[in-house]
């Protein structure tokens, strides 16, 4: 149980991991997430379910090594087990037949957009995916997204691949050129979602955002994941993670995401030093 079945490096510090957890694979739905602890001392970190197979019993996770816990997760080898994993958590995406759906995925959010695009396409929507990253080397999951989209638009901030600019610029271009989607669904860095939300609102298109606040419990017990939506406090883990994008208080979310920057950096430096000293001793 909780055994790592495979591990792949998708981009610098971005890893894809398949984990054997039949009880979660059995009931997982698009838009849900899990909480993972690689070891006893780790944080409880939320990760979106990118893919799963209920017959074979595995789930697929993609993560950016950004703090101590995600680094430790990345160090887990095939055959090793994760200390703890719980899920599937959060409410599944509402996958209706809307007509034309634009899916926006940014950075490590692109893999999280994959099962959503697939689900929307499966029920007969025309799926237009906009995926973007800082630079081509960090652009992940393009092939997978192509498999499940009718149209794909790629953007990079530096223009090293596709359109030079942000996903939100591409979204604005498409809407400006007269495209009238029935729904925009987005996942990625909060500032990206904030911009996309503003554009969707300007063109009067319904937009749903999958939020990624800091979490501890993942099941409504702590309130770490609080977001303000339509002026009300909501717990993203069990009332979300998806909300109407134009109702989200994005500035508050962005500030809350930065709450532990200092502590995270301190812990990461200490962890790197420890790793380096182990490497020296070898």
């Amino acid at each position, binding site marked *: 149980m909780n055994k790592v079945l495979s591990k792949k490096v998708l981009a610098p510090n971005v890893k894809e991991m398949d984990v054997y957890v039949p*009880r*979660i694979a059995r*009931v997982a739905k698009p838009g849900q997430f899990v909480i993972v*602890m690689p070891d006893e*001392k*780790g*944080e*409880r970190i939320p990760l979106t379910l990118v893919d799963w197979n209920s017959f074979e019993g595995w789930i697929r996770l993609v993560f950016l090594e950004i*703090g*101590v*816990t995600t680094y*430790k997760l990345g160090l887990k080898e095939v055959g090793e087990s994760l*200390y*703890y*994993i*719980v*899920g*599937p*958590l959060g409410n599944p995406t509402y996958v209706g037949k809307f007509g034309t759906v634009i899916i926006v995925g940014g950075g490590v959010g692109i893999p999280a957009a994959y099962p959503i695009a697939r689900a929307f396409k499966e029920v007969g929507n025309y799926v237009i995916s906009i995926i973007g990253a800082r630079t081509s080397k960090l652009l992940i999951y393009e092939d997978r997204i192509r498999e499940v989209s009718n149209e794909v638009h790629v953007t990079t901030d530096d223009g090293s691949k596709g359109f030079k600019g942000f996903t939100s610029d591409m979204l604005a271009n498409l809407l400006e050129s007269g495209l009238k989607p029935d729904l925009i669904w987005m996942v990625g860095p909060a500032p990206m979602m904030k911009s996309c939300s503003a554009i969707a609102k300007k063109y009067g298109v319904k937009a749903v955002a999958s939020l990624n606040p800091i979490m*501890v*419990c993942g*099941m*409504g*017990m*702590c*309130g*770490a994941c*609080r*977001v*303000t939506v339509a002026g009300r*406090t909501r717990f993203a883990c*069990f009332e979300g993670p998806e909300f109407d994008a134009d109702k989200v*208080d994005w*500035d*508050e979310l962005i*500030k*809350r995401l*930065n*709450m*532990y920057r200092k*502590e*995270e950096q*301190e*812990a990461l430096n*200490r*962890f790197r030093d420890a790793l380096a000293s182990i490497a020296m001793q070898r």
Partner: protein
Amino acid sequence: MPKRSPEERIRDFNEVALGYDEQMAVKEASRCIQCPEAPCIKGCPVGINIPKFIKFIRERKFEEAYRVVKEGSPIPAITGRVCPQEKQCEKYCTLAKLGQPIAIGALERFVADWAKERGVHVDLQQIDKRSERVAVIGSGPAGIVFATDLAKLGYDVTVFEALHEAGGVLVYGIPEFRLPKKIVREELAYMKDLGIDIELGIVVGKTVSIHELLEEYHAIFIATGAGHPRMLGVPGENLNYIYTANEFLTRVNLMKAYLFPEYDTPIHRGRRVAVIGGGNTAMDAARAALRLGAEEVYVLYRRTREEMPARREEIDNAEEEGVKFIFLVQPIGFKGDSQGNVSDVLLMKMALGEPDESGRPRPIPTGETTDIQVDVVINAIGFHPNPVIPMTTPEIRTDNRGRIVVDSDGRTSMRRVYAGGDIVVGEGTVIEAMGWGRKAALAVHKDLAIEKKLSIAVHKR
């Protein structure tokens, strides 16, 4: 009971109360007048034979005393520490009327610790295994008693717990300095000894549904507690470093943020901390904040000291340690700086009015406001029942406050499904929850004996 000095204890998270030694225990036990009708027992929701175990202590038969205690409470090292004895057994003690009741909790703790130090175990009687399988949802005090009682009767018991450690509030809420986690772990080992299977990382209602469990188990006990934080609903409540008590205590206790960066989970160590509320949770949060290095910790309460729901002992402990109390104030908002970090709590001054439904004088706004500067706020105003199972299983009836409705034996509106503890009473105590576990276990035992003839079809996966 002897305690460590405030100056010493606020520098670490080690236990505050030191417990009796043998001599003190025997001396205290000797005060017991062995009332024939034993009024104290009726104050104990799990019915420990109190005079009997106290008599054994007096006779220095500590091992026998331990066996008696353990028959009533499967986790005596815990109940001896956290029970509000002044409202339970000690309240009914005959000596209470004459002045000082017997320190029953301290004696219970003494025998439990004595047995632990010497590695005394209660021999498990050989019991005939039964074929009936029961599932327990939640591993807090209610679930623990339910599971151990039925395992002792030979049932095949599985406990499902969402978190990565068993124990409920005992591990994520009550801090180390009141209840060392090593003790919780040792007490819970007894469940394993009884052959109880504890499955961690399973959220019933998400990972598996109640309906699916009913296909595999003859009976289900819901003991999911009241862990859903209540919000203040005032402007600015989501500024950075405004924690709910549950988040703050979970980070500190379960995730061991006080040992950061050895453990990965951070916590913001505030210099000026405001804790909102007047219950035990508020005291725990305030005292934990002090130990994380706060210079000033304020408890803000909307009534006065007399109405505070926290135990007297905990209020005194907090005060000794330097926690300051501000009474008759209610938060009406928070201000923050440009990074979104909380900087001020805005307060409405209150006055006491006529008694409300709870019998306590109702706090009424005076119209006068004030504010205090802070860098961490902890909201400890209370909890709602855990909503996950009611939300995903509408057949289980709840009342208008989200509590699962049960009969006096713990039966819910759904056949073969029982509930008890905080999910039924709202915010109760460890020992009340344990009492519910015992009642429901009895009900299951009775009901299954009747239903066996009808043979419930379950299959083992």
